[in-house]
């Protein structure tokens, strides 16, 4: 039984989907360009949340200051992953590069524990104590969720324009299809790689900053399980290399999350179990994703 009107459940699902879409877009971008999953992307989100929290709650800075600093840190991490990992490992087996991104995720986790400590912290919303929101019966869609939907929509639209309308964007797609030919055509492989890793890091950070205030508390490693995992399932539903597919996948995951949460609101973890089942089914039935055509095996 649903414990809320169905339109409420659907709208909350879309709001969650916006955040998962940011993750899924980053995962898909990296997979297209480097044929690996960047497992550090979620933890970059947690790190960004910690940086923002440290400046905002500890040092009384404005929300915007905290957010900009967090994004700067994330961008630096993304660039470092390009410069010191992806570039030297350009010809390494993809498995090794993927394990290295797992190492980065754990390194960020270890640093969070050392620098900010293991205790859960609270990141305030940028909208202060405002009680404003869009009302759906008794349910209020709070500003942070509205912001998430707007930001995700803007980023998805911007990425689509960049990739299909600009020379650089088309170069990214060409590199993903055939790296060596793209290099011969004079597409700057280094710039494409740098863009990809930085963009993925920023998307992770934005998702982290948007989701942390909705969670009450956040803590080290939280984002890797909470939003990165869901973004990964969304990307997988999209076939791992389709950006529109990733967005559709995010909507599917967001709605599953929302419905499972309302139906089984007493037992946590049901969404995770459902998502595991979905992952296994997608792998058996349609590994190329719901919008995919290429053969994945």
């Amino acid at each position, binding site marked *: 039984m649903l414990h809320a009107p169905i339109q409420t459940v659907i709208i909350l699902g879309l709001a969650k989907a916006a955040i998962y879409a940011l993750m899924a877009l980053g995962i898909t971008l990296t997979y297209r360009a480097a044929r690996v999953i960047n497992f550090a992307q979620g933890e970059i989100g947690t790190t960004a949340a910690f940086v923002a929290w440290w400046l905002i709650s500890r040092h009384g800075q404005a929300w915007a200051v905290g957010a900009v600093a967090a994004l700067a840190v994330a961008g630096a991490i993304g660039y470092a992953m390009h410069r010191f990992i992806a570039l030297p*490992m350009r010809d390494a087996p*993809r498995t090794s590069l*993927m394990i290295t991104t797992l190492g980065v*995720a754990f390194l960020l986790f*270890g640093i969070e524990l*050392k620098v900010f400590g293991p205790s859960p912290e609270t990141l305030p919303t940028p909208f202060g104590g405002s009680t404003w929101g869009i009302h759906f019966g008794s349910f209020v869609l709070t500003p942070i969720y509205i912001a998430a939907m707007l930001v995700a929509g803007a980023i998805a639209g911007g990425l689509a324009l960049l990739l299909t309308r600009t020379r650089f964007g088309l170069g990214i797609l060409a590199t993903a299809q055939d790296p060596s030919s793209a290099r011969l055509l004079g597409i700057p492989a280094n710039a494409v790689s740098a863009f990809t890793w930085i963009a993925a890091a920023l998307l992770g950070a934005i998702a982290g900053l948007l989701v942390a205030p909705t969670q009450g508390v956040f803590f080290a490693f939280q984002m890797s399980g909470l939003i990165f995992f869901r973004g990964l399932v969304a990307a997988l539903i999209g076939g791992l290399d389709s950006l529109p597919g990733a967005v559709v996948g995010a909507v599917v995951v967001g709605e599953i999350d929302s419905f499972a949460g309302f139906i089984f609101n007493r037992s946590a*973890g049901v969404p995770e*179990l459902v998502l*595991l089942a979905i*992952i296994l089914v997608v792998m058996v039935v349609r590994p190329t994703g719901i919008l995919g055509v290429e053969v994945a095996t």
Partner: protein
Amino acid sequence: MKRETTPKWSRGPIEAPIWVAALAVMFFILGATGALSSAQAAIIDYAVIAGILALSLNLLMGYAGQISLAQASFLGLGSFVTGFVVSHAGSFGLPLSLLLSVVIGAIIAMVVGLPAMRLRGVYLAIATFAFADAFDNYIFNIQKISGLGSGVTVTRPHIGPFHLKTDATLLAFSLLWLAIVWLLDTRLMSIRYGRALLAIREDEQIASSFGVPVTQEKMRAFLMCGAIAGLAGSLYAYQVQVIVKSSYALQISLFYLIVVVVGGLGSRPGVVVSAALFTLLPYWFTFLKGWDFVIAPALLIITLVRNPGGLPDHLQRLRDARELKRRRETKEDIAGLRPKVVGTERPAATVTEELLRVEGISVTFGGLRAVNDASLEVTTGAAVGLIGPNGAGKSTLFNVISGFEKPRSGRVFFEGRDITLAPAHERSALGISRTFQHVGLVRRATLVDNLMLAQHSRLDYGAIAGLTALGDTRRLEAESRTNALDLLDEIGLADFADLRVEVLSTGQQRLVELACAVASRPRLVLLDEPSAGMSPAAAEHLAEQLARLRTNFSTALLLIEHHIPLVTAVCDTTYVLDAGAVIASGPVRKVIKQPEVVTAYVGEAV
């Protein structure tokens, strides 16, 4: 070089388990006399269990090159199964809990692994990640399973008169299991199943061309990985006595991944020592606490960026390259074949009959027709060429025949049997072997291991017989080893049998590839540009070598080659492929003079 025919597993590796067992006895006595404090014994026991868990992941990641992000979940599974069994089964608790932990670990591995195994490696990483997350959030959150906050209490067991009540006896018990797992691991890597994993790690396509059923072998590795981790979980439950779910979080799985990479992918002692150190050092040197989570991943990143295959891999490559140089200096050049006849066991076919028939094959990539209604035939023992300009679809047609490409239409018959849909590894077992345009060998395995891999489907002992060295295992392994060394002798590379393929020159690798192609006594060998990458001198010998292969092994050849003199020297007849279609066929000398063939190669005559 002294001929080495004794299989590896009857020598050295047995020593390590003996040492571990001796340690077990020592700790047992130390504990009984009170020389080893209970707290110390417990900590060392954690280190031993960590070693078993590291071995489980090393099996999957170090040997097979697959990632599991769920080792801590398997550990938790073993622990909670043990907790449940102990509270219900009374005096049979210990054996039953160990058994069930192992079995359930394997079953869950199957459920999670089966969908992912057919796909590329990244999918297993995703599936295990999801599994870890679902277990962490759901299964381990069920009150009846994990006891939630208060955990589950596990009482320590006894086997007959042996009470495993003290930490020291438990430590001795865990050490015995470490010895058993170590021994099984060593056995695995000296039989065909272990070699198959090394081939899979290198390249799944090459593995299946050797006759390895890739999905099945990956699955077997993951089952063992889950089972061993389940065992570790059971031992862990008895040691901690109160099991709580936080010990089995995703972070712990990631930490073990780091432990294995830093210890050395594929290195048994490396990963066990690494697991022990990462467990013990933060206990003994408390100032390290917290820093281990920073230092360990940093070490992983440095290790993999500098040596993507891991440190042991890098060291072995250096050692083998040095060895190669040393042995070369004491020998004359080894380019040619020495006249020694190997492999005339099958009488040359007296009647030529149809061997391979390809009927109306078409392959399309997107909108492009790579192969267009191509048909060809090879009779037993024949040598047939397949020539044509670049991009004519020759390699694609090879891929259809060897099972790497599914045709859009058309059929492939081998010895009268329709094999159009048979997987690649089955075709290898039926008697079709192939070489690749780029050298298709397991570069990180030794020459002799490559040649034994090529005989994978002929070594038909089962996994249990292999792991226990029972049945025909020893005999079959020894035979295949002798066969491998004979073939290496024949191509003049026996002196380098125990070195890795990657240290050889491309020309030498090509020779090894040829030897591999005939090692399984195939009926048909598909050769994809065998002269590519060879020095002109070595290429000159090639025609003679191919002719000898054909007679000595009474096999048919289908040869893709751009070097026309080689085709003329080796083949009786040839097919010409242009833009995916067969445009001519017949005796080589006649065909290459036909105007349409000349046009295909050099363009329209002016």
